[in-house]
């Protein structure tokens, strides 16, 4: 049955992820793989995949699950999957008639962490249970993946899997291997079940009754040659994808990673986790592991993301019984805003006149403006640009000689950044629409489809309402701007109900945004179009704290909390930029774009300022 406003629907988000989402996203993400490493390297490297929540890491992993690959193989020449298939083939994940990789996807939820904090367990026991729980889950997930790859049924067909491993290292104590898949599955499932009972029992259970493991042998025993169906080996390699590793306790995570690095075998292991302020590994990137940061990948892909959102919007709108398209005006409605621009024109001209009354330098510019033949809106934009350039000129050259600057010089000085800044300044000064159009909404969504839907749903509701009593469903730029700001304000208002440590976080963001605002709206627009990010310069941190350790120092515990909360709840996201000599990499913390809306900041990237840790700390304390 069709519904009124499909943009509100949550569950279908998952459906979308599986089919449409992957269809559109994946070819692009895979390009990133292909561009950055060759196939061998991809499969043989210990790979970290990091991103902000919602930026697509789980979807990327899902692509390599047997179910997705099977769909793909079945429809490989269809238009929608052709590109994707080509790329996966290039990566050797599939051949024309076969899937080469068994993707085993394991999501870490919080219950591993429970083991860590569970009172009454000896540390040694804790580790052993952690490994046996992991082994159990890796093995059951692998068996399910094999069934799926072989198009067999779970659990009925488990016995059709032949587990051919010769247990020379005596990993298996309670079952005899080789054995069939069912025996293996039941053994593994039983371990999980007993550990759960231990963790959930009101009455004491002795952990001694549970099989504990001292290593992660599951990765060693799940190999193509050991997992046969009908006597045949079905795939060439196994890919273990451990998702949401950040949900482990830090002790577990560190332990797991060093265990995996130590035991490095030919297995492919991808670890995906949320980008956090402090998850540096004490090993060398490149030699010990590779890292894929999905944020960086998105950087180049803004237009593609907009395409994706448009397609999602169209599909959602098609699901509505109201037969209304998702349409946002990309242009300002001049009729609607005529009065505002008329007033702005007068004010702007007066401002420029006043600014330049003591000098003849800008006479030609003024003349140029007066004679400008364009719409009111174009006039106002030009006037604002001139105003900014005049401010810059005045700031720099108080002692300059008095001669008239040419129009040519003016035009040279007005670059795209000034144009953007002028638009922003203008909207702020005269209450003109700034946040509107699909392109803008795409930017506001900050690479996050859910966030897009969060904004699109009320906008679509409005379109439905307009449709109910008017002919046009397109929302004017003015109303879009108003509504988008309203949604952002509401989100901000709800923040203390949504996030932990909200007091600290809100204070930090308020101070940071106030700072951004004051930097952005300086009359010379020094960082045009504006500032909405910061870089932490740890080298200039306080005495006595080593550069790489400052963040873990107790003095900065609040800052650490704030930064991690902001990253976890996607209020800030990190992008890497190359800067300075030798292409030094820097991490820039940018505001999620909806916060830019809330504080009237531009949606551009590149405007960031360097801050020392103690300066950041002051934003929290104040």
């Amino acid at each position, binding site marked *: 049955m069709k519904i*009124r*406003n499909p943009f509100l629907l949550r569950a279908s988000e998952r459906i979308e992820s599986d089919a449409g989402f992957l269809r559109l996203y994946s070819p692009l993400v895979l390009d990133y793989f292909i561009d950055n490493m060759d196939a061998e390297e991809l499969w043989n490297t210990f790979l970290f995949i990091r991103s902000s929540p919602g930026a697509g890491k789980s979807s990327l992993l899902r692509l390599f699950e047997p179910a997705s690959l099977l769909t793909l193989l079945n429809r490989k020449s269809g238009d929608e999957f052709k590109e994707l298939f080509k790329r996966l083939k290039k990566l050797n994940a599939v051949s024309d008639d076969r899937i080469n990789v068994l993707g085993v996807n394991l999501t870490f939820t919080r219950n591993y962490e429970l083991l860590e904090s569970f009172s009454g367990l000896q540390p040694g026991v804790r580790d052993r249970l952690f490994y046996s729980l992991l082994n159990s889950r890796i093995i059951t997930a692998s068996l399910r993946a094999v069934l799926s790859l072989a198009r067999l049924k779970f659990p009925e067909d488990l016995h059709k899997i032949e587990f051919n491993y010769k247990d020379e290292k005596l990993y298996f104590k309670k079952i005899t291997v080789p054995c069939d898949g069912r025996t293996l599955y039941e053994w593994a499932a039983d371990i999980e079940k007993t550990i759960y009972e231990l963790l959930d029992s009101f009455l004491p259970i002795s952990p001694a009754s549970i099989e504990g493991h001292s290593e992660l042998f599951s990765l060693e025993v799940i190999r193509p040659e050991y997992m046969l169906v009908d006597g045949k080996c079905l795939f060439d390699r196994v890919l273990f994808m451990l998702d949401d590793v950040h949900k482990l306790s830090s002790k577990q995570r560190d332990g797991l990673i060093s265990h995996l690095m130590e035991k490095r075998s030919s297995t492919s292991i991808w670890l995906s986790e949320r980008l956090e302020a402090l998850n540096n590994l004490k090993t060398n990137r490149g030699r010990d592991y590779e890292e894929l940061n999905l944020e960086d990948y998105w950087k180049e892909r803004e237009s593609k993301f907009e395409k994706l959102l448009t397609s999602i919007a169209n599909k959602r709108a098609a699901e509505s*019984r*109201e037969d209304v398209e998702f349409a946002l005006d990309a242009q300002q409605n001049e009729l609607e805003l005529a009065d505002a621009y008329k007033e702005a024109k007068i004010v702007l001209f007066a401002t420029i006149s006043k600014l330049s009354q003591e000098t003849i330098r800008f006479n030609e510019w003024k003349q140029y403006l007066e004679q400008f033949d364009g719409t009111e809106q174009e006039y106002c934009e030009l006037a604002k640009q001139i105003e900014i350039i005049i401010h810059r000129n005045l700031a720099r050259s108080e002692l300059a000689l008095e001669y008239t600057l040419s129009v040519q010089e003016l035009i040279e000085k007005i670059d795209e950044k000034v144009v953007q800044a002028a638009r922003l300044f203008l909207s702020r000064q005269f209450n003109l629409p700034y946040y509107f159009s699909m392109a803008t909404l795409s930017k506001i969504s900050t690479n996050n489809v859910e966030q897009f839907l969060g904004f699109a749903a*009320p906008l679509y*509701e*409005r379109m*439905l*309402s*307009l449709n*109910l*009593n*008017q002919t046009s469903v397109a929302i004017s730029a003015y109303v879009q701007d108003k509504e988008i700001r309203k949604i952002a304000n509401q989100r901000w208002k709800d923040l203390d109900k949504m996030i932990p440590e909200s007091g600290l976080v809100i204070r930090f963001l308020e101070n940071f945004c106030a700072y951004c605002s004051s930097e952005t709206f300086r009359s010379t627009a020094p960082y045009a179009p504006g500032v909405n990010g910061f870089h932490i310069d740890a080298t200039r941190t306080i005495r006595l704290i080593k550069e790489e350790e400052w963040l873990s120092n107790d003095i900065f515990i609040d800052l650490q909390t704030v930064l991690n909360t902001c990253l976890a709840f996607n209020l800030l996201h990190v992008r890497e930029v190359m800067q300075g000599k030798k292409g030094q990499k820097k991490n820039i913390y940018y505001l999620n774009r909806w916060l830019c809306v809330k504080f009237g900041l531009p949606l551009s990237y590149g405007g960031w300022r360097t801050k020392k840790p103690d300066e950041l700390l002051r934003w929290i304390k104040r």
Partner: protein
Amino acid sequence: MRTSLAEKLLAKIMEWTPEEIDQERPLMQAMANLKWNEYQQFAPGTRFLESLIKWLQQFETLDERKVGYRLVRDHLIFVSSEQMAHLVDILFSEKINPLLIKKTAVELSLSPYLVSKIKNDKLYAQNRRKSLFIGLSDGSRIDQFRRGAYLNNEQVIATYSIGPEKVKDMLQNLEKDIPDSKFKTVFLIDDFTASGMTYCRPDGGGKLGKIFTSIFKDGETFYGAVDHESLEIHILFYIATTDALHNIRRGIEGWKKSKGLNFNCTVDCLLEINDTSKQKITSDQELMSFMVKYFDGSVVDEHYEKGKHDLPFLGFNECCLPIVLNHNTPNNSVAILWMPADKKYKGLFPRISRHREDKYED
């Protein structure tokens, strides 16, 4: 009528801005689908939205339409069939079983808190069997109640006006299960009362008066079937106002006194409606003058006049309820909600009154 057309009309007559439509339409859709569409007295093919549109259209000004809409949006209490079924479902364990346990405890000289011991005693089973359950109207859904409570068919009757043969049958059946016994607890079950006036009138009339007479007057239908010695009578409603419970209790006391009889009799309900919802309406001047204006005095007949009727637009006996039951709207609710289709102003949930002679409220 297509929903979207109805919504278009609604938006038009309410002169809603797009912002208002954003808010109101999803709410109306949800509530209509969940509950309001199931009103059984809508004309065939009519659904809530169409009724709402017709209803709002009769109000002259936009402000009045807004007041009317507010009554629906912020005050209306609609008891759905599902909710009614839930009340029927919990009646036995919430109200009846504790009474049976208490009674058995007294007879066993046990503390009433020893519930397991009491329930496991055969006297409890006997007391349960020796209970007679009588539905006072169709609304009591007595059949659903019986099935849910696993009661014997021969101890549950849908109406109190049955012939002596039936009663004799029931008694014989009881004696088959428990020799030499009569019913010693009578449960009278009804769905709703707002004024309580039709149950026990000062003149001895009313449903309860009739039943009591039938129980206590030698030769009447139930007289021979009950054990007058240890008789308890419990009157249970699914929904009742505090006032009604009070009135009925007083009426019963009066009846007992006038007849010189004494027996254990309680009155209780599952969903008690106190004064609050009434006060919310009467303290709203806009709403009050709206209801005054849109009232058709012809609904006031001699029966209606038996209740308080200085402000007849507040409903029978000025109960001023915002209640609609899925099968009918009680006339104790504010009149603008229920006035029948043949009146000058029509109710949103028009009421059908079936038992004019006997029944003023559903």
